[in-house]
């Protein structure tokens, strides 16, 4: 049967993630797709963004011509500082991340297991040059780690898996998985369904993932 549902666009997915970020939250948005969440924080909520390179209260990109190359984000793009923002050094910044002070971090992923293991730093290809950055610190440090990704890989395989086959970033660290097709919660017992796009039923979603969803 032809699917009758529409996947969430990147902005719709970002809006879905942003809808769950509470007023007053301290949040780190990972490089790539998660950065987009900042554009969709619902009006009336004050959310403070952290950047691993020593910024709290990070604001949006500056207007063209206003870039200051001493003021950049973790992806090394120019940003701004909101009134009330603060700078601190790298050891303090990672203590903030590792010490459980951030409410939420949102990361991209190659794979997430049903019990919340995360693989997002290396595809383990032979000969590839590895790079990890702050991924392992973020994954285990925040009060809640959320993943934001497409549910299926380009070849149609579920990126939510029973066991990660790519090298791990952290064990049992992901709480929620926001995807273009559904929002899932990881638990020691397995996956729970939070929501799915209109027209995608529970059975069809289970078939796509290849794993049972808990009641």
């Amino acid at each position, binding site marked *: 049967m032809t699917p009758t549902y529409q996947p969430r666009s990147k902005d719709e997915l970002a809006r879905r993630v942003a809808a769950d970020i509470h007023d007053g939250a301290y949040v780190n948005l990972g490089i790539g797709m998660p950065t987009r969440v900042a554009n969709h924080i619902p009006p009336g909520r004050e959310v403070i963004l952290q*950047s*691993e*390179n*020593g*910024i709290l209260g990070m604001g949006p990109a500056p207007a063209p*011509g*206003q*870039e*200051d*190359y*001493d*003021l*950049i984000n973790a992806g*090394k*793009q*120019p940003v701004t*500082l909101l009134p009330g923002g603060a*700078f*601190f*050094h*790298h*050891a303090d*910044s*990672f*203590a903030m*991340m*590792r010490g459980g002070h951030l409410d939420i971090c949102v990361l991209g992923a190659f794979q997430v297991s049903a019990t919340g293991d995360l693989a997002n730093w*290396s595809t383990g290809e032979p*000969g*590839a*040059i*590895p*790079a*990890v*950055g*702050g*991924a*392992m*610190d973020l994954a*285990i*440090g925040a009060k809640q780690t959320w993943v934001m990704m497409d549910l299926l890989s380009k070849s149609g395989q579920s990126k939510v898996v029973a066991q990660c086959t790519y*090298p*791990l*970033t*952290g*064990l049992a660290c992901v709480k929620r998985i926001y995807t273009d097709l559904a929002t899932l919660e990881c638990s020691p017992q397995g996956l729970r369904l939070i929501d799915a796009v209109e027209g995608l039923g529970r059975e069809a979603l289970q078939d796509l993932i290849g794993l049972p969803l808990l009641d």
Partner: protein
Amino acid sequence: MIDKIASSVADALRGVRDGATVLIGGFGTAGIPLELIEGLIDQGARDLTVVNNNAGNGDTGLAALLQAGRVRKIICSFPRQADSQVFDALYRQGRIELELVPQGNLAERLRAAGAGIGAFYTPTGFGTELALNPDGSPKETRVINGRGHVLEYPIHGDVALIQAERGDRWGNLTYRQAARNFGPVMATAARCTVATVHEVVELGQLDPEAIVTPGIHVSHVVPVPRRATTAGGFKAAA
């Protein structure tokens, strides 16, 4: 009288020996002590171990130091970038050793060195490939409060090269925005810290409430002109 203001980069770097561990500050376009890296190329020390967040961008600065064949080993968190071709080639040819470290472990291992801590347990990296030593043997682990932790050791530097914003003759430093990054923690972790500043001021001119690195951690302060950086792939605004 204490006067840590160096007359030149060459003067400040005179003591760097072959085989030294060199901590180099900077993250992206911010806080890279470019004049000091260029000075180190001129200075000639070889067989260096370099600690930096990355492994050089483009063909200047750290990339030029690598290209000159002066670095035996690099300890960093994120070597692979769109413009890290110099490191990539050396690595593939087996001409440079890489110790890949999660960025928070890099910062905390430097902090531990500066604070006299013998080693520390952290959950970062537990259960991953980076909980292995370079020879493939597992690092020591321990379960603390039900959570797996990995034992990590400090990274001591012989010399730290950092960029600050303002400094005085006692070596007190302030920084500018996110150019602070690794500077303060590297300054504490090295036996000799050399800082470039864009402005030298009289004692008492830095607000004591706002000094980030107290002068005890700094050996030499070298004034350099402000200059736009193109490191990290970004051009300076016109």
